[in-house]
């Protein structure tokens, strides 16, 4: 039975050929190249739309700025500027308003009894101060020296300069043989010492009835007017506030013979 092994009725399958598996290889470079290309395209499209959007934003901002600029009213600005300038000018003059009465008061307090002011020139030097040029007549050198000392000690007068001194021989006149001294002095009073204060007490000379009834002015205010008292003469010594201490000026003497 040798052929028994070959005579099996079960058909034999042909032995299958071993299948050859072919693996598909994906290269990294390929992936990268495709990714890069797609990303570039997407970026280009995105950048295009973003640029368009930004340009619209710029136009909107420009329009908003123009609208804001057009809201600015030149007429209002001019009105405010003009008012401000006027106010500043008025304030600057108010700040530098002075009271000459203070200067006169200082002069009165510092002028000695034996001195007589013959002439007085008061000049305002801008907004710095006053320059007083005065001619004073005294009896002798002692009075002159004392007068100068009084001016120097006065708190309101900050500069004293005797520019000229003239010895007058008055022997032929009523003084009975004595000589007088004529001083020319320049005094300086700083503006700060004579600043006007509306609260300061007003010293006024009572007026004559005719002066009180004279025409009113629309612009003069707070004047000491209309009191209706009579004044004896032009040499009245009313409203004098000088002290009676030694060295104080004798306004009566000044009024009668000088200023």
């Amino acid at each position, binding site marked *: 039975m040798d052929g028994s092994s070959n005579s099996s009725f079960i058909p034999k399958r042909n032995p299958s050929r071993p299948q050859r598996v072919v693996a598909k290889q994906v290269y990294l470079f390929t992936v990268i190249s495709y990714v890069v290309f797609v990303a570039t395209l997407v970026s280009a499209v995105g950048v295009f739309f973003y640029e368009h959007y930004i340009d619209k934003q710029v136009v909107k901002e420009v329009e908003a700025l123009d609208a804001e600029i057009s809201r600015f009213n030149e007429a209002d600005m001019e009105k405010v500027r003009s008012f401000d300038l006027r106010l500043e000018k008025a304030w600057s003059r108010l700040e530098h308003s002075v009271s000459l009465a203070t200067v006169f008061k200082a002069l009165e307090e510092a002028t000695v009894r034996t001195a007589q002011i013959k002439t007085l020139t008061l000049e305002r030097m801008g907004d710095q101060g006053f320059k007083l040029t005065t001619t004073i007549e005294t009896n002798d050198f002692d009075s002159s020296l004392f007068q100068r000392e009084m001016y120097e000690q006065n708190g309101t007068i900050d500069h004293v300069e005797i520019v000229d001194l003239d010895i007058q021989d008055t022997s032929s006149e009523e003084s009975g043989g004595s000589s007088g001294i004529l001083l020319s002095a320049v005094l300086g009073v700083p503006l700060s010492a004579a600043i006007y204060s509306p609260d300061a007490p007003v010293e006024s000379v009572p007026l004559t009835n005719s002066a009180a009834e004279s025409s009113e002015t629309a612009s003069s*205010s707070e004047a000491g007017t209309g009191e209706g008292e009579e004044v004896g003469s032009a040499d009245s010594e009313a409203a004098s506030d000088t002290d009676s201490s030694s060295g104080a000026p004798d306004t009566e003497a000044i009024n009668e013979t000088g200023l």
Partner: protein
Amino acid sequence: MIPKGLFTQLLLIIVSVAIVFTYIKPTFTSIGETQDKIVRYQAERGKVQEVNAELARQVALLENISASDNRKLLTYMPDHVDEMAVMRDLHTISNNAGTIFVDVTSGDLEKPTTRSSRQRTTETPAEDSDGKKLYQHTFVLTVDGSYNQIKNLVSTLERNEYPLEVKKLDIITNEGGFLSAELHIVTYSHLPPVETENLYE
């Protein structure tokens, strides 16, 4: 032989690089500049808004000032000075002070006088100590009186509703014991005087 696939991939890379350098990068630069512009415009708009708001506030302040305060300011610092009115006021003030009015002249008017009162030319812009231009008008007032009356006159001048600044005061003794005073008085205007030299030319 070069494989087709590799060629395509290389082409894709090259095209991508070209797009980046020729379009995307310049566009990014342009976008950056545009954004800077936007920021600047916004900043400027903010400033203009601040100015407009401040102007509106100042206008509101101005409109809240009372009519009487406005009137006082206009009296104190008028646009123009009426020289005749000032001369009238000086005449009245000198009479009210008790002095004897002698003469008053203005820098504008040339008036023959019997006294030797000096006339000064005026209306030159001056600067006060704060540097603002002020147009000043000078008047020369001559009076006679006693020392106290002249003091009263000066005191009244400084209380006037508009400035009457005494720039110079000369006092001399007259015959008979009276004093003669010559006052150089200055007042101010906000605007320069109207020029009439070239009127209708």
